[in-house]
């Protein structure tokens, strides 16, 4: 170790506070970098594993391979593994409605034991098939196509090949108009169970995958081959080179999370978010490290001046400085890496539950450390340290020796620039003047304090503004959304069955509230419709009738009595008029397109008719401005008359024929865990004997996804704000305490000419107020502007008006408190020592 290394080390030891603070800065910034990166990689790993659990670990699918090609693929060097099942053929899915137009087939796959080992199958009901006459059906047949097939059903399928212009089509070829299904044979299967939509079925595949076992003979000789590669990055390339005759596809879902994707939106999202985060973190940490060196710039330069005056060359200086930087880095960076990883490890259990809701895959969210990322974090920190340490050395080398020592550069400030106004005198007295002068002199040094405080403040405020605005927007959207989270709609089910089902279903997992209703459509005749309804109605529906008599379809809801009478009370209507044989009903006339309600407040009499035109029942309806519960009608015309009747009145309506001859019933469930509830209801329903058809809808899906996403954003946001605030605190602490250290002598001088302790505190506090005010000025202004912009953008995206801008007062108040808290505490700490010190010791001490 040469003398320069020794001086460098000694310097570090002697200025212990400064060194510690610098190292703390290094630790913090490295920790932040590591933390964010580790959280990101853990999340990605989680998504990858969840995807593998859902769809299997494969990268390329060849959907039409013959045995020779299959073997070729298996023997391929790049292939890490294959899973193959037999393509038995396609059959039409009968009863599939409009909802499944692009997926009209059943696709039969013969799965060997090996295939089942590689490709994940999640049974929700029944058991696995054991031979070629048994079959599993996927649950999205019911959910998506609305076709109900139960365990134990027998399926008679006309199986064949899809072709277009003679060309064989496979699961990789989505449904095309003009394709034909060439029936080869009829097969009979027994349904042994239901399984979740298989993840290995491509999203755009035209057939629902029915899982059966391969037969002993009569093999088709055609396979779907799922290939796992050693180098997933090569997937497209590999497929392009190898596909032979077969159609192929890559596993976009999986590759996307590995960062291999052509999807421009996903890429843009990944890169822009990642980029912004990265830049902010880098800037913040570079800033912190740089600053912790910069504060002592002048002292360093002075020291270098002295060294140079005794003959050190600038090369030696630089070397000593780099050595010092290296020491600090070696001390701080390892701790930073550890701290970052540790923080994420502690944080993960807290967030993993929420991720479980997004993807109910059962894969745990585990810590995943990326070594390249750690290396990057270490390298970035080290480079920043070295550069920051090197700058004063270079400055010193460029400055004449004497100037370095005398430090005339420090306060080149003109007297004029330090002049303070009379107002400061009047307001704050001598202490105020001194504080102000100091503030002015140290402007450059304190710029970093103000900047980093402003930075964290703006981030905290706009972050919270972003969150609340997003939530408010979502609130507006979801306020317009349907009642309930899960909807069950049955058609032509006997009331007995329906009620029995309801009793069973309302106890399903996650449900905390439920209701049911019966929804017939009646035809009504009236001549009492007021003009303000009749006219817009006729116009809307293109009805050319004239005169007061009008025939209208009535969309009726029989709802639970409590619900009805609560609603009645809300509207201030007398209960007695709505009970008994001559009870009134409620009606609401709505333009379903514009959601405008017409003719509130009046009463109309009308007659319910049978389809043959016979009069069935006379009733009087009170027109109200809304109805208590969403109906379960799926297709409603542009104008709808909703009639609300309590269940107790239902007997009076029995026997009235409905418009379309059908009777619809619905249940609405409110659930805290909608996707789990849906799964529970599905398995419950598969065990039930029912007539008629039914459908289950997850109304909350979009909202739930949003909720979870917003939680993820929250976590990121808070972590981010937290880290940045820590950096800001470190920065502020660093700057203020070093600055006080450097002003030790000057402060002692003030005391030696008789400044009292109270005056001294007053001066320091005023200084704090000046920094604080400056920060607040910039911070509040900037966050106001930014949060307004965010509001503007979100509102314009969602096309919402009458949605006022609200300044994030709460967050702002917290930040203001935070800013002053940090500054005052630091000042208090930093001046604590100086205040108690023997004056002459401080005055004598030249090398602060």
């Amino acid at each position: 170790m040469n003398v320069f290394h020794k001086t460098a080390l000694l310097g570090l030891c002697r200025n212990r506070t400064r060194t510690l603070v610098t190292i703390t800065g290094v630790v913090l910034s490295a920790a932040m970098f590591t933390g964010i990166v580790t959280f990101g990689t853990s999340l990605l790993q989680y998504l990858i594993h969840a995807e593998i659990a859902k769809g299997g670990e494969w990268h390329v699918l060849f959907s039409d391979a013959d045995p020779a090609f299959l073997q070729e693929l298996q023997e391929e060097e790049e292939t890490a593994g294959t899973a193959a099942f037999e393509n038995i053929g396609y059959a039409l899915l009968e009863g599939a409605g409009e909802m499944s137009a692009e997926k009209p087939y059943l696709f039969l796959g013969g799965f060997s034991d090996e295939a089942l080992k590689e490709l994940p199958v999640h049974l929700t009901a029944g058991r696995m098939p054991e031979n070629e006459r048994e079959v599993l059906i996927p649950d999205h047949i019911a959910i998506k196509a609305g076709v109900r097939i139960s365990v134990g059903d027998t399926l008679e399928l006309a199986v064949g090949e899809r072709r277009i212009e003679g060309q064989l089509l496979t699961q990789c070829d989505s449904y095309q108009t003009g394709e034909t299904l060439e029936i080869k044979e009829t097969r009979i299967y027994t349904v042994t169970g239901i399984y979740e939509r298989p993840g290995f079925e491509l999203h755009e595949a035209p057939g629902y995958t029915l899982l059966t076992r391969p037969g002993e003979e009569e093999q088709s000789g055609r396979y779907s081959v799922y290939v796992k590669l050693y180098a997933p990055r090569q997937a497209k390339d590999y497929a392009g080179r190898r596909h032979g005759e077969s159609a192929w596809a890559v596993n976009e879902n999986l590759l996307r999370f590995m960062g291999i994707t052509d999807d421009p939106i996903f890429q843009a999202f990944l890169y822009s978010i990642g980029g912004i985060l990265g830049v902010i973190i880098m800037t913040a940490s570079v800033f912190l490290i740089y600053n912790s060196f910069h504060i002592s710039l002048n002292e360093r330069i002075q020291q270098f001046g002295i060294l140079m005056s005794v003959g050190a060359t600038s090369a030696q200086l630089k070397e000593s400085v780099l050595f010092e930087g290296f020491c600090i880095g070696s001390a701080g960076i390892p701790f930073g890496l550890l701290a970052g990883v540790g923080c994420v490890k502690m944080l993960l259990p807290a967030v993993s539950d929420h991720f479980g809701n997004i993807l109910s895959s059962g894969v745990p969210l585990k810590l995943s450390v990326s070594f390249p990322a750690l290396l990057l974090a270490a390298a970035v920190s080290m480079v920043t340290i070295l550069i920051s340490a090197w700058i004063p050395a270079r400055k010193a080398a460029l400055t004449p020796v004497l100037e370095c020592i005398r430090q005339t550069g420090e306060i080149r400030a003109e007297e004029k620039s330090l002049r303070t106004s009379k107002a400061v005198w009047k307001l704050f007295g001598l202490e105020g003047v001194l504080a102000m002068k100091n503030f002015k002199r140290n402007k450059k040094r304190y710029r970093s304090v103000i900047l980093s405080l402003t930075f964290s403040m703006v981030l905290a405020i706009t972050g919270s503004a972003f969150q609340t605005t997003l939530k408010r927007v979502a609130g507006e959207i979801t306020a317009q959304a349907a009642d309930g989270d899960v909807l069950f709609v049955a058609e032509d089910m006997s009331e007995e069955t329906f009620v029995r089902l309801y009793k069973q279903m309302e106890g399903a997992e996650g449900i905390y509230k439920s209701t049911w209703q019966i929804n017939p459509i009646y035809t009504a005749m009236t001549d009492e419709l007021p003009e303000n309804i009749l006219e817009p109605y006729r116009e809307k529906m293109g009805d050319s009738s004239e005169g007061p008599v009008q025939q209208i379809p009535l969309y009726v809801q029989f709802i639970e009595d409590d619900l009805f009478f609560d609603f009645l009370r809300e509207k201030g209507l007398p209960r007695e008029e709505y009970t008994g044989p001559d009870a009134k009903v409620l009606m609401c006339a709505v333009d379903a397109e514009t959601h405008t309600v017409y003719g509130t407040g009046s009463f109309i009499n009308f007659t319910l008719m049978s389809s043959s035109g016979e009069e069935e029942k006379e009733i009087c309806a009170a027109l109200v401005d809304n109805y208590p519960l969403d109906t379960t009608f799926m297709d409603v015309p542009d104008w709808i008359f909703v009639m609300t009747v309590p269940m107790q009145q239902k007997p009076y309506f029995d026997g009235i024929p409905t418009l379309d001859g059908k009777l619809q019933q619905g249940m609405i469930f409110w659930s805290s865990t909608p996707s789990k509830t849906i799964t529970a209801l599905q398995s419950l329903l598969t065990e039930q004997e029912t007539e008629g058809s039914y459908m289950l809808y997850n109304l909350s899906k979009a909202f739930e996804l949003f909720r979870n996403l917003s939680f993820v954003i929250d976590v990121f946001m808070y972590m981010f704000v937290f880290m940045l605030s820590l950096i800001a605190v470190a920065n502020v602490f660093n700057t203020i305490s070093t600055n006080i250290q450097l002003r030790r002598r000057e402060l002692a001088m003030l005391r030696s000419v008789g400044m009292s302790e109270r005056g001294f505190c007053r001066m320091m506090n005023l200084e704090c107020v000046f920094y604080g005010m400056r920060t607040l000025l910039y911070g509040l202004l900037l966050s106001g502007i930014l949060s307004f912009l965010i509001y503007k953008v979100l509102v314009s995206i969602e096309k919402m008006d009458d949605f006022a801008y609200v300044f994030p007062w709460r967050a702002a108040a917290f930040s203001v408190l935070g800013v002053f808290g940090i500054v005052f505490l630091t000042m208090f700490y930093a001046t604590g020592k100086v205040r108690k010190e023997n004056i002459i010791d401080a005055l004598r001490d030249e090398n602060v």
Partner: protein
Amino acid sequence: MEFLEVRNLCKIYGKGANQVTALDHVSLKVPKGEFTAIIGSSGSGKSTLLHAIAGVDIPTRGKVYLDGQDIYAGNREQLAVFRRRQVGLIYQFNNLIPTLNVVENITLPVLMDRRKVNQERLEDLLEHLGLKDRRRHLPNQLSGGQQQRVAIGRALMNAPAVMLADEPTGSLDSKNGYEILQLLKESNQKYKQTLLLVTHDENIALQAERILTIADGRVVRDSRAGRTASANMQNTQGRREAGV
């Protein structure tokens, strides 16, 4: 009791092997208005004594009485007020506030007391100190001598009861030094100030009414003006040092 009394003052720096006794049971009495010169070789404890009297360096043992008051008996606030009102201390080294200009530095003790600045006295001081055309300059824009004169101005501004000057003319040429001394003496006579002045310069010491000689932290000689020749004093000091 005399106006200024120092009793058994001790100041010990450091601990163990590094221990340095800068003041070793120093006692002295100074009547009001007396001009005393303190001489002694470098490192003998002159500055330490002055600092202890000025209330900026807390002594290890012993007491300092001014006007019958023990200056270290009160709390920090009282000590601060004492420094502000009662003493004017001129340091051996420059200790101006870098953010304040000449006038502000000079009037600092007055401003600190929230009193009105006596403009007449300020002008007078600026005139005498030769700083009239430098009033708005910052300390780092001044030469060493000028800085020292600002410090003297600051000490004189309040016309404090006790003036303590630690080699005030050390960094000045003889003409400047002479002027400064005249200023101090004038102030001493005009305001009945007690003046303690540390110096190396025999000629300056000889102008004092009384000369204290300090060696190794002890007062080794105390002589009234005119009675001791400088050569004699040197001898005495030499003997004492040999005897220790």
